[in-house]
């Protein structure tokens, strides 16, 4: 019996996402990525003595949009101070929301896993500055000196805390991927994990199957991509299962994921954890969004991925297979679902439209937009009618993405202009005439020889012959000869 059969893995996620506001959460400095260090700063976000925070309305609207899109209740909320010392935190406390967050009790549906993950809360907080430790250790202790950039200090964040409802690295990845798609669709964030605008911490525990009580959890930090999220959870669950299996105990602690070594290591134990001494932020008043404000945000929300997914599922006949669900997921995540819808509406079979969108178009990430929906439909119709082979259709799409232009231009530039029916008929005559032995055996019933003739015709035509038309004419010739 493997460990996976014996143990149940439990994962809960905390996702921080930076909001795409024009200015910071509590001051008028630009919310911009990549500016020279310490250029987007002022007395407020530098925490200078006497400076006071003023809440950014747009940040509140984005937080409400996130809450609504995750099916949360939007509530009166209170900002609190989270006190701890660190050089990248100018005030040595972070303004966050603690026991009264703005969004509570929502859920996120995982379409492939087919389950709902509860959202405990989503709250607003400010980001810290960024520290670079110079010297051999790369950590603050033991470095020669440290440089701090406060451009990020005060950037608005929303932290979304899930229930521990996920049971595998796969589900955790699907959660983050779906969450990201929803958040990007609301416009609240750009969701760029690589730029740190979306950051994930994972709480992982294991327990014997059949037991109810959750195991002791470890929190894993430094997960900068979906790939590291999946690997880190896999590694950590394995570590805990082996530990428990050997009679050891998991200690509650924070662990650091090391992408290069592919393992987690202890950062600090529960005993070493800070007492943050939360208390209500006296420089801000409670945040009480009016019903009007909430409704106006609700009205401005676009159609979100779950609803868009439902449209594609409907086209799939209401009960998409697992592989179709995954393809649908890809289309939604990459915002390519309109291609599937247009093609299907133009009469292209759904399966073909979905597959070409989720595979070929999706592979053209970054340039896929260059393929106009109209062109895409044209290519698929040509493929569906047999004018283009699958290989040719894919090549035409690539060329459209790369060079633009019309579908006809691409087909002719690639030399995929098909032969006329009479030219194909002439080819049939030619290759059967040149290979009398094979022709005789084919007439006698060796059907697999059709492939031989197609190959010969391809060779003779330099690949321009349409296999399907050739086959039909070849079969027609045999019928005539047999009568």
């Amino acid at each position, binding site marked *: 019996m493997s460990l996976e059969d014996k143990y149940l893995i439990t994962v809960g996620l905390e996702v921080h996402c930076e909001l795409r506001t024009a200015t910071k959460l509590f001051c008028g400095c630009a919310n911009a990525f990549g500016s020279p260090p310490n250029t987007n700063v002022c007395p407020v976000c530098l925490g200078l003595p*006497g*400076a006071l925070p003023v809440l950014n309305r747009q940040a509140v609207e984005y937080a409400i949009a996130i809450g609504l899109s995750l099916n949360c209740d939007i509530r009166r909320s209170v900002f609190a101070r989270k006190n701890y010392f660190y050089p990248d935190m100018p005030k040595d406390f972070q303004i966050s929301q603690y026991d009264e967050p703005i969004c509570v009790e929502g859920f996120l549906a995982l379409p492939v896993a087919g389950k709902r993950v509860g959202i405990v809360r989503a709250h607003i907080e400010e980001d810290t500055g960024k520290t670079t430790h110079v010297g051999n250790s790369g950590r603050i202790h033991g470095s020669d000196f440290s440089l701090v950039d406060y451009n990020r200090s005060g950037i608005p964040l929303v932290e979304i805390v899930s229930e521990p409802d996920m049971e595998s690295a796969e589900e955790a990845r699907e959660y983050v991927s779906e969450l990201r798609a929803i958040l990007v669709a609301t416009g609240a964030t750009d969701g760029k994990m690589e730029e740190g605008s979306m950051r994930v911490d994972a709480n992982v525990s294991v327990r014997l199957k059949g037991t109810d009580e959750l195991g002791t959890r470890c929190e894993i930090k430094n997960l900068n991509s979906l790939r590291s999220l999946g690997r880190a959870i896999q590694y950590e669950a394995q570590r805990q299962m082996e530990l428990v299996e050997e009679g050891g105990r998991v200690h509650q602690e924070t662990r650091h994921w090391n992408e290069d070594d592919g393992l987690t290591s202890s950062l600090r134990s529960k005993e070493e954890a800070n007492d943050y001494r939360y208390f209500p932020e006296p420089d801000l008043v409670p945040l009480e969004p009016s019903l009007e404000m909430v409704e106006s945000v609700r009205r401005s929300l676009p159609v979100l991925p779950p609803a868009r997914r439902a449209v594609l599922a409907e086209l799939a006949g209401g009960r998409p297979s697992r592989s179709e669900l995954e393809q649908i997921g890809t289309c939604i995540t990459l915002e390519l679902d309109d291609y599937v819808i247009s093609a299907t509406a133009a009469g292209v079979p759904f399966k073909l439209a979905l597959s070409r969108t989720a595979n070929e178009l999706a592979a053209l990430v970054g340039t896929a937009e260059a393929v106009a929906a109209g062109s895409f439909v044209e290519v698929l119709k040509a493929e569906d009618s047999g004018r283009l082979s699958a290989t040719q259709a894919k090549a035409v799409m690539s060329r459209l993405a790369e060079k633009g232009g019309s579908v006809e231009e691409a087909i002719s530039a690639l030399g995929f202009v098909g032969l006329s029916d009479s030219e194909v008929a002439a080819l049939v005559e030619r290759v059967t005439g040149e290979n009398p032995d094979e022709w005789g055996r084919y007439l006698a019933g060796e059907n697999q020889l059709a492939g031989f003739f197609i190959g010969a015709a391809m060779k003779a035509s330099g690949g321009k012959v349409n296999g399907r038309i050739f086959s039909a004419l070849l079969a027609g010739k045999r019928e005539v000869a047999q009568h």
Partner: protein
Amino acid sequence: MAIVDMSAREMAAAVRSRELSALEIVDAHLAEIDAHDHEVRAFLLVLGDEARRRASQIDAAIARGEEVGPLAGVPVAVKDNMALRGVETTCASRILAGWRPPYTATVLERIEAAGAVVIGKTNLDEFAMGSSTENSGFFATRNPVDTSRVPGGSSGGSAAAVAARFAPLALGSDTGGSIRQPASLCGVVGAKPTYGLVSRYGLIAFASSLDQIGPFARNVEDAAALLSVIAAHDAKDSTSLGAGFDASEIATGVRGMRIGVVEEMLDGVSPGVSSVLDSAIASLVEAGATVERVSVPAARFGLSAYYLIAPAEASSNLARFDGVRFGLRVEGEDITETYLRTRASGFGAEVKRRIMLGTYALSAGYYDALYGKAQQVRTLIARDFAAAYERFDALISPTSPTVAFRFGERSDPLSMYMSDVCTIPSNLAGHPGISVPFGAAEEGMPAGVQVLAPALGEATMFKVAMALEAAAAKQTVPAWRSAAAS
């Protein structure tokens, strides 16, 4: 009349009518500072050149016929916990020595726009924590009436500057009585406005939910005039109210007014201060008010609640003084040691005591019993005041239980904290309060009467203060004048 004895309003009127130039007024005060501040030590920094330059600008503007504000040419002394761009601002703490803020507090922008001239930055108890100005990280300020005594605190420098005629007006901040108590001890007027009436932007925070900037003056109307300039909504302060203050209708008397004497604020009051309060009560009755005793039961717990809430907020507000970005840095082997060394050598004993108290009060496992409970007391105090204001228009009490004490006399922190027992409750409730000098108590030292009013009840409060002032015995004067007179 000597220039420095004029009221602020008389000075501004004289400047606008060109009877006096702003420069003459500033020079007269600089001369007074030069002659006597070595005895008083009210200022951490005298801005002589800047003040003279500013005065000349105002004179030039008047010569060009331009509109100058209601405080044209009036020198104002500013407690050194308000940021003034490019000018050293220290909170009387060694941890901030040399720090020059890159921005200006909203109140200072407002008084400058009104034509006032900032003449200097005044001494205080470090980070406004104290009641005697002995806790300054640099030196103690002396009471101008008797320089062997403290001026009170924490705005002791501002109170002393006004009492000593170094400026007709000053700004202080009041977290638990830091304007009213030194006003009482120095024999001047000092007012703490309703929380949120005056912007805190640029006031270096001690306890954010209690701090409020307010005026000092030698008469009630001057204090009202300064308050009307600084009271305004400020978008940079989220706790700022939408209200302003109109000083034009405060001289209408107290006839028919119902005034309560707060019973809980009569305990432990010295005989001299007690008899000052009695004469004040008699004068209000004389002026046509009805005066009765009233109980505000929860006020008794004010001091205890205050010494949890204020240190709790302070422990967080003062975290940023860590040696990383500004102020003092004492290098250690690593960041933690740098924090420890910087803060250990930069903060004085009282500041450390309050940071420790506050850190403890907010700690896991203690929060509910300490900070949480104190917040509940705060609610009770507000409720009990509200009940009292159903029956009374205003309340009165002594400002401080005693007159100014001698240096070193209150080395035990608790006895020092007791000086603020009458002033703290209104900070907890967010209500306004003013101290009006009402003659001398023990040993010829001044004593003030405190007038309290409900939130945004400044107009009522100032009316009562005006009536008290009209009946008050002759004001005390600086020691060097009484010595010259005798």
